[in-house]
């Protein structure tokens, strides 16, 4: 999944080659066959085969969903709420989303036609991409990025164009770098702030410039704001809140991260009515609707979850401080992220690739982290370390890493053992 991966040009000989592929392979569509396996998947398989691992590799909250939300789902089940809902989602949930989004971003969305409830942000992203991309359209996004961005664009027959972001700029997406890719053929810009895997937030000034650029170039902006609640020093600013941007932006959000509801698979898209209507066409024929129990639980979360989110945010902030200070004390150059729940430390001083470092840390220290390359080619030289696990697990991981680092590296030195 190269950050600047280009969709291969159709090969006129390809169909002739197909009969020689292993049995069954010839049935697979070319664009699916050519899609690389997720790097995170390979590492997951390896970690699963091992015992006694402490993981900083999780991309979800370490705590369970708050009980009042779980209890509401149980009550909904007991009440016999087991049917389909409207394609758009329960009206009461869309009304709750509308109020929540207005509080969070200052942008008002009409529950009747500007909000679509989806099966997580992943489905919202897929519907949005399929709704706007004609084969060959280019989609810009920051590299490193969430693992699904590039493949989702490819599966929609688009061309993903990764824009490298740099450690020296705290992995922030810069308007100037985006402008350099403003060429004919670009249809959309995919934003993620705060970002997975770097925790970076796009500065408000940069966001304003990116908004102007998007207007000038007539791009659709897909803004994945799933970590908007998890910011520690400054408030999240949605690109949709800039003048003229609501009309060309689809904001993607959901309950997975801030409400610790990953397994409920509940997300939504908010945007201009014509775009939402196009997305509904895809959603109604593929997913039909998000599970009703999750939607019922979602209403409870949005209507009564504000205090709980604040306590989670405080807890994440403390755990971020703890892991950041621990890693920097071990010699990892690392920014203190402003949002999300990931650190993205550099391993350049240790002269190992991301894969090698993560593999050895796993084998020798029994600590799982995710190699930066799982998130794009610009992730080489970095690791993603989540601070969402429980504090006890973080302390154990830090203790193990400390011992392993002392045994193998002096600050900035080459490996001294196990190589």
């Amino acid at each position, binding site marked *: 999944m190269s950050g600047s991966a280009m969709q291969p040009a159709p090969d006129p000989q390809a169909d002739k080659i197909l009969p020689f592929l292993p049995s069954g392979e010839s049935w697979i569509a070319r664009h699916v066959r050519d899609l690389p396996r*997720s790097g*995170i998947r390979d*590492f*997951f398989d390896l*970690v*699963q085969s091992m015992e006694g*691992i402490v*993981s900083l*590799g*999780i*991309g*979800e909250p*370490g*705590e*369970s969903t708050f009980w009042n939300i779980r209890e509401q789902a149980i009550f909904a089940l007991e009440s016999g709420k087991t049917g389909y809902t409207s394609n758009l989602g329960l009206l009461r949930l869309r009304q709750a989303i509308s109020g929540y989004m207005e509080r969070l971003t200052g942008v008002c969305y009409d529950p009747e036609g500007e909000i679509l409830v989806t099966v997580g942000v992943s489905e919202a992203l897929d519907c949005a991409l399929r709704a706007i991309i004609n084969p060959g359209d280019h989609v810009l996004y920051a590299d490193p990025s*969430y*693992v*699904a961005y590039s493949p989702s664009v490819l599966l929609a027959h688009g061309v993903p164009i990764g824009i490298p972001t740099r450690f020296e700029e705290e992995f922030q997406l810069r308007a100037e770098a985006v402008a350099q890719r403003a060429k004919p053929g670009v249809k959309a810009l995919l934003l993620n702030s705060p970002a*997975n895997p770097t925790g970076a937030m796009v500065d408000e000034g940069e966001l304003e410039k990116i908004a102007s650029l998007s207007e000038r170039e007539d791009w659709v902006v897909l803004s994945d704001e799933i970590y908007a609640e998890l*910011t*520690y*020093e*400054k*408030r*999240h600013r949605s690109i949709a809140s800039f003048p003229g941007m609501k009309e060309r932006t689809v904001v993607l959000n959901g309950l997975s991260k801030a409400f610790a509801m*990953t397994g409920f698979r509940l997300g939504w898209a908010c945007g201009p009515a014509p775009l939402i209507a196009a997305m509904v066409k895809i959603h109604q024929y593929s997913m039909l609707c998000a599970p009703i129990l999750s939607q019922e639980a979602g209403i409870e979360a949005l209507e009564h979850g504000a205090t709980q989110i*604040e306590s989670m*945010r*405080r807890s994440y*902030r*403390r*755990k971020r*401080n*703890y892991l950041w*200070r*621990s890693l920097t004390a071990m010699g990892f150059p690392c920014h203190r992220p402003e949002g999300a729940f990931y650190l993205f430390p550099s391993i350049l001083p240790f002269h190992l690739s991301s894969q090698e470092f993560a593999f050895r840390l796993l084998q020798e220290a029994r600590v*799982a982290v*995710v190699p930066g390359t799982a998130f794009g080619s610009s992730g080489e030289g970095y690791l993603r370390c989540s601070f969402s*696990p429980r*504090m006890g697990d973080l*302390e154990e991981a830090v203790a193990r890493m400390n011992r392993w680092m002392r045994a193998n590296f002096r600050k900035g030195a080459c490996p001294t053992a196990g190589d």
Partner: protein
Amino acid sequence: MSKEVSFSAELLCLLEENPLRSSETLAKLLGREAAEVEQEIARLEKEKVILAYKAIVDDEKAQRRTVKAVIEVKLVPERGGGFDRLAQRIARYSEVTSCFLMSGGYDLLVFLEGSTLQEVARFVSEKLATLHGVTSTATHFMLRTYKEQGILVGEAVDTSRLSISP
């Protein structure tokens, strides 16, 4: 964005959560120096903001045979002192583990602990009920604990997560 909470308030939260963390760990969590944390804990202890550090124990697993009871106590308030003098007198008994002034149908809620049911009953009838100013008591014996000071008791919940996820 996190709302600002004072250093003391955050430190107290962390100590209530787990008082066994080292000052180095607490300092990392709070973005402070270990010496600052130690100094603040010393101040909070000296000023009796922090009263004690205690373990929360699952009595069943520890195979304790203690008997616990909750007593609703009605009092006659005293002129000038209200309920305080009598409440403090009751709270001093070693059998009393907690004592709260309440609104509603009774005045004090008293938590008792003894080694047998008879011992607790004797304390209530011979000591508590006979105090001048106590007009009535209603005793409820505790049968089982499901949650103690914010901690679920005896419930094994599987909150495991995939080791690696996107």
